[in-house]
């Protein structure tokens, strides 16, 4: 219901906006050269696509965290500063992460792998199930994210997420990016760079930042997309497959 309203509102705003824009900038329209960046946003999000990602951990280099750096820069996480008087160690536990690297060792073979972890964009996300207000939601195109207008900061989604993908904003925010708004007392997590997706871009910041080509993002429903082809090519796995959440993020080499 609320999605429908949102769409209607969005359509109304777009139409109204276009009308206003047409009146105001009609004389200069040829000069602007028909900038159409906002065009895709007028289309409702559909389930014809399902966004997903393949992470090839065999390509991940030990000690590399370029994807994390790329993510934090893209989503304004690098702008956060430790509150005055905070204990640096404690603050490090409270600082939000959308992405992090993890090094794991196989209990039997001792094989070591390094991999990035983030929201796995489940088809059946436990965070969405438990959220009392519906702030934690899954878009039709498979992106799981938080509506920070109705998040009350109860942190139940953080209790429910099997991947520890979510962060709570513990402090006042003075600097942020308009593409990734955040506020004290709300929960947030990786949203597959949804602002890029909605602008018609085809890559995420972590993918762009990876020097080893270990991350492939795309439409899992399109058999010809790069990610679908890569997933077909070699075996891959989902984390906590036993939970049958059908994650949108898949790993190779672990």
């Amino acid at each position, binding site marked *: 219901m609320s999605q429908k309203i949102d769409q209607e509102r969005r359509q109304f705003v777009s139409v109204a906006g276009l009308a206003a824009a047409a009146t105001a900038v009609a004389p200069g329209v040829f000069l602007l050269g028909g900038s159409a960046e906002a065009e895709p946003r007028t289309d409702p999000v559909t389930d014809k696509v399902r966004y997903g990602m393949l992470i090839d951990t065999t390509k991940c280099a030990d000690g590399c965290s370029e994807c994390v750096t790329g993510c934090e820069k893209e989503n304004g996480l690098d702008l956060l500063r430790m509150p005055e008087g905070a204990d640096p160690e404690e603050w490090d*536990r*409270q600082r939000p992460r959308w992405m992090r690297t993890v090094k794991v060792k196989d209990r039997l073979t001792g094989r070591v792998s390094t991999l990035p972890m983030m929201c796995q964009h489940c088809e059946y996300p436990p965070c969405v*199930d438990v959220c009392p207000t519906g702030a934690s939601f899954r878009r039709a195109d498979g992106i799981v994210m938080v509506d920070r207008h109705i998040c009350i900061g109860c942190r139940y989604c953080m*209790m429910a997420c099997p991947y*520890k993908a979510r962060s709570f904003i513990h402090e006042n925010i003075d600097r942020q990016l308009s593409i990734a708004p955040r506020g004290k007392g709300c929960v947030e997590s990786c949203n597959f760079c949804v602002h890029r997706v909605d602008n018609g871009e085809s890559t995420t910041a972590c993918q762009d930042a990876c020097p080893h080509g270990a991350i492939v993002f795309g439409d899992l429903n399109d058999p010809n997309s790069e990610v679908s082809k890569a997933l077909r090519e070699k075996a891959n796995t989902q984390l906590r497959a036993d939970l049958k959440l059908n994650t949108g993020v898949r790993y190779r080499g672990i």
Partner: protein
Amino acid sequence: MKKIHYREWGIESPRYWGLLAVLGVVLAVAGLATLYMEHEGHWVTGMNNQIVWGVPHVFAIFLIVAASGALNIAAFGSVFGKKIYKSLGRLSGLLAMALLVGGLLVLVLDLGQPSRLIVAMTTYNFKSIFAWNIYLYVGFLVIVAVYLFTMMERKANKYYPAAGLVAFVWRLILTTGTGSIFGFLVARQGYDAAIMAPMFIIMSFAYGMAIYLLVLMFTFKLDGRPIGDKLLLRLKNLLGIFVAAVFYFVLVYHLTNLYGTENHEYEAFILRDGGIYTTLFWGGWVLLGMLVPMGILFHPGLGRSRGAIVAASLLVVLGGIVAMYVIVIGGQAFPMAIFPDKIIIESGFYEGVNGQPLHYAPSLPEFLLGLGGVAVALTATFVGVRVLKFLPESLADEVVDPHHG
């Protein structure tokens, strides 16, 4: 059995206002602590992105669980028709409401965005047990208020059994909902168990009864009203049975876990290697919270001493808070099995490197907020008994016992 007369709490004014003043100070300090946490954000607490629910949740859940349990005493009178408990029903209802309000207040004030309570009350995701709980809590307050009305207003007396039944069923559903907050969490080893719901129900029986006994004995003692041995010994025996039932559920919970290999690491954490959580489990919850009070309550000599009954009740309450700490914090401190067949040897986000528990050091403001909830519950109760006729004039044997004399 004589007719029961109820009278307002008649202790002298200086004593009454002194009591309220003490509680007022606790409330003021708790209020300041809450404002501080709200203003600064949760970074001033010990909570972090690993332990997301801290001490406020421990208190809030304890109070909510105890609230539903405090209503049982009324239910024994109306649902199960035990005449001897009928006279205790009014205080039972009042205490249940007061404890619930105290617990909810703590829960709400610990939200990241408490000002969005209106969002929580108007925007629902009905797959969320949290959303159901909002209905269950509000419904509980309304139903118990009506139940109290049917007890206290003569014209409404005829609806008393029906209201009692609805209230009792509702309280069972409510505690099922509270236990299911944890029971439904598939991601975490310590939760994700259907037994959480009935375990919380039986915990509510014990904690609600312990608090009820303490409040009853305190208010009666201060006002010089008699409680006969007959009733008191029945209540303390019930408390002993409830604590034994909690013990049984804890035993079954851990034995079931111990049987499955996948839970061995979690069990080793709580029962053996978990440091503070292991200490709290054995020392606080099992020994002081269950075994010692059971020993006192069922002891032929000690069990008849009023001082010992008070001590046992206090221990049950303390053990209950410790139990919540072990469940809420211990359950989060144990690292999640994101990679069940692997060991995490390095992590950029504190996820239990080499199986190490996650760090949480509770802060003072969190405790103060929790104590504030307790103070709200006690203040509401004391004001309630002062202004309305909640307390029987006497609970002496000849008044309450239908078979006396």
